[in-house]
């Protein structure tokens, strides 16, 4: 069963065709590779996340999904600051430090698309005033934005 209906898929395909610039790699970190889940892990959430990303990646040659196991690829997990799964790392021309933890469904599916497009273009949509503040930050800032799909 598909997550995206044909109309939505076509809309996204057109949007990607006009708005994507640089290729985007979506690094999907899963509990384990090969379908083996450890006790307490919600494998179903990871499986849905995998399905969503695969369907989205089919809509543009510029979007690619790579799957990693949190334990079997511990080096990559550490490099990309991934400690919990499922986690998506978005890489464009560079790593802009954006991660999504959990299933990007419901309203958050739009968030997923917006991040892919922004990372591909290498710029967000903030005001000049915001740009100035961010350019002059004296220290590192880590944001955790809590959301729900509804």
């Amino acid at each position, binding site marked *: 069963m598909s997550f995206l209906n044909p109309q939505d898929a076509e809309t996204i395909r057109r949007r990607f065709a006009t708005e994507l610039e640089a290729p985007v790699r979506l690094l999907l970190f899963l509990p384990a590779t090969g379908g083996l889940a450890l006790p307490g892990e919600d494998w179903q959430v990871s499986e849905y996340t995998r399905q969503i990303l695969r369907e989205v990646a089919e809509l543009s040659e510029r979007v690619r999904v790579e799957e990693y196991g949190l334990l079997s690829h511990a080096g990559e997990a550490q490099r990309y600051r991934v400690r919990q799964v499922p986690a998506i790392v978005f890489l464009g021309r560079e790593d802009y430090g954006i991660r*999504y933890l959990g299933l990007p469904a419901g309203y*958050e599916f739009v968030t997923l698309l917006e991040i892919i497009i922004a990372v591909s273009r290498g710029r967000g949509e903030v005001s000049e005033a915001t740009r100035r503040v961010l350019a002059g930050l004296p220290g590192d*800032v880590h944001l955790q934005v*809590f959301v*729900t*799909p509804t």
Partner: protein
Amino acid sequence: MESPRVTADIVEATEFPELARRFTVYAVPKTVINETHEVTGAVPEPHLVAALAQAVGARAPAPEGGEE
């Protein structure tokens, strides 16, 4: 994306209840900054930027649009 100093995790709160509990997330969106400062709700961009600047000891910019 506008600064290499800024990183961001979007966290689906129901799937990561321990994180949500740790930062007492009762309503979304809630933005936690450096685990010490927080902003609840979909606030205007200047407000979020002011909170962010405050968290790292930068001088907060004057909010634009006067939405105080």
